[in-house]
């Protein structure tokens, strides 16, 4: 399963997430960016079951 963390401090926020895309024991990707920048002041970390794999 994937992991993501976030923490609020005084006047700042940090967020971290892993970059693997796996199904069971099979790693499909190791460079998946799971943190999206929604706007200059908004970040979203998403994790869950991938329904489709996007291959660049």
């Amino acid at each position, binding site marked *: 399963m994937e992991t993501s963390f976030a923490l609020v401090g005084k*006047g700042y*926020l940090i967020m971290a997430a892993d970059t693997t895309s796996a199904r069971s024991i099979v790693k499909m990707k190791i460079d998946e960016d799971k943190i999206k920048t929604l706007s200059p002041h908004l970040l979203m970390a998403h*994790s869950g079951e991938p329904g489709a794999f996007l291959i660049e």
Partner: protein
Amino acid sequence: MTKQRNTDFYAGDTVQFAEYVERNIRLYQIRNLYPLRPSAAASWIRRALAESLRSRKPYSVNLLLGGYDTASDSPHLYWVDYLGTMTEVPFGAHGYGAYFALSLLDR
């Protein structure tokens, strides 16, 4: 060029949901000339997930939404799960790593 390989064994499409959110937040910005504040964005996302949960094929996506509210000069963090549960937290984690992180921070 992006290729897409479909597997329909799981209810998933995490990335698709994230992109849906991203584009809607952006649309709001374009229409109104100012961005959504973190609390408003979190509420919108929670509602999108709650409606998805009650549809035929729900998204099973867990989210952490972090934002800096420029109006009140304060950072906010929202913990959202695939059931549409949302809460504002000082720290948060998802997945197996949450057990490690919360055992350190939750005291």
